[in-house]
């Protein structure tokens, strides 16, 4: 009844239960954080705008991205994955989301930033619909916890427009 095996088993079971409970509480505590992140994006230049040989439009942009994501961090946050996507509608597609730039923010100290960059991933349309196209640049963030539930949200920045002619 009170052999070594039983004691070890009981101790292990208890330890695992407590650990699971603490993980649950840590994840639940994220719900009390109500973040208020801010982001601002400017298109500084359109470097290249052309139709590829495949018939798809491609754009290269220079962007200025500044954001303050400090309020997303809690004690259960491992990292925040942030990315900027161009979002627009075309006759064929109800929604196009093209990621242009992303970054991993490992700590609260680096969550306030301002950078100037060209698009990291190619901005290619499915087809040739980008001339004079209105589009949104949406800042998305995905909060990865140390344990538990993942959170995601975004901020839509609208009012961008591509030129009428290739260049």
């Amino acid at each position, binding site marked *: *009844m009170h052999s070594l*095996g039983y004691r070890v088993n009981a101790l292990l079971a208890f330890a695992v239960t407590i650990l699971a409970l603490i*993980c649950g509480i840590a*994840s639940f505590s994220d719900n009390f954080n109500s973040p208020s992140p801010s982001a601002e994006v400017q298109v500084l230049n359109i470097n290249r705008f052309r139709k590829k040989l495949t018939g798809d439009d491609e754009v290269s942009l220079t962007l200025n991205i500044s954001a303050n994501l400090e309020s997303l961090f809690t004690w259960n946050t*491992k*990292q925040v*994955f942030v*990315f900027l*996507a161009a979002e627009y509608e075309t*006759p*064929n*597609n*109800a*929604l*196009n*989301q*093209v*990621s242009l730039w*992303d970054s*991993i923010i*490992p700590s609260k100290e680096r969550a306030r930033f301002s950078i100037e960059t060209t698009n990291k*991933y190619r901005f290619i349309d*499915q087809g040739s619909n980008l001339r004079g196209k209105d589009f949104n640049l949406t800042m*998305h963030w*995905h909060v*990865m*916890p*140390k*344990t*538990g*539930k*993942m959170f*995601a949200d*975004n901020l839509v920045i609208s009012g961008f427009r591509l030129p009428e002619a290739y260049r």
Partner: protein
Amino acid sequence: MGWIGEQIDSIKSLNFRQVLTQAVSLGMIVTSALIIWKGLMCITGSESPVVVVLSGSMEPGFKRGDILFLHMSKDPIRAGEIVVFNVDGREIPIVHRVIKVHEHQDTGEVDVLTKGDNNFGDDRLLYAHGQLWLHRHHIMGRAVGFLPYVGWVTIIMTEKPIIKFILIGALGLLVITSKE
């Protein structure tokens, strides 16, 4: 002789009942594990509700040995979500992030491109030859929750099968010899 015979009989009957109880309780353990797994499949709508991360392509977010909880709903797939997908001709599913989405107007079918956070380029090299996009039927679920380290148990067991046999053997021996 009569007395010894009685003793042997009582031991025999006792053993039989003990064995029966043990077999039943072992069956209970196995079936309840099965019930939990199948129940999770029903709730999450994903054919494998829990997956173990096997590669470092999503570091530092997900490391090898972490486990992910999946959910598969009717909601459309959007950029930024971490999805688990199967590629034709590959046995092991891949956990990567969606970076491009093109949703068709008339059919509602989606063209999806993925990339591992820690990889330099996108996943077109991992897809089947000539495949440019993932579609809805490739995707098994999206990651909603995360638990570190726990998956190491299964990684160790699949890579060192001898440990699995030793563990199963020891557990079996414990069940057989236990008096409770």
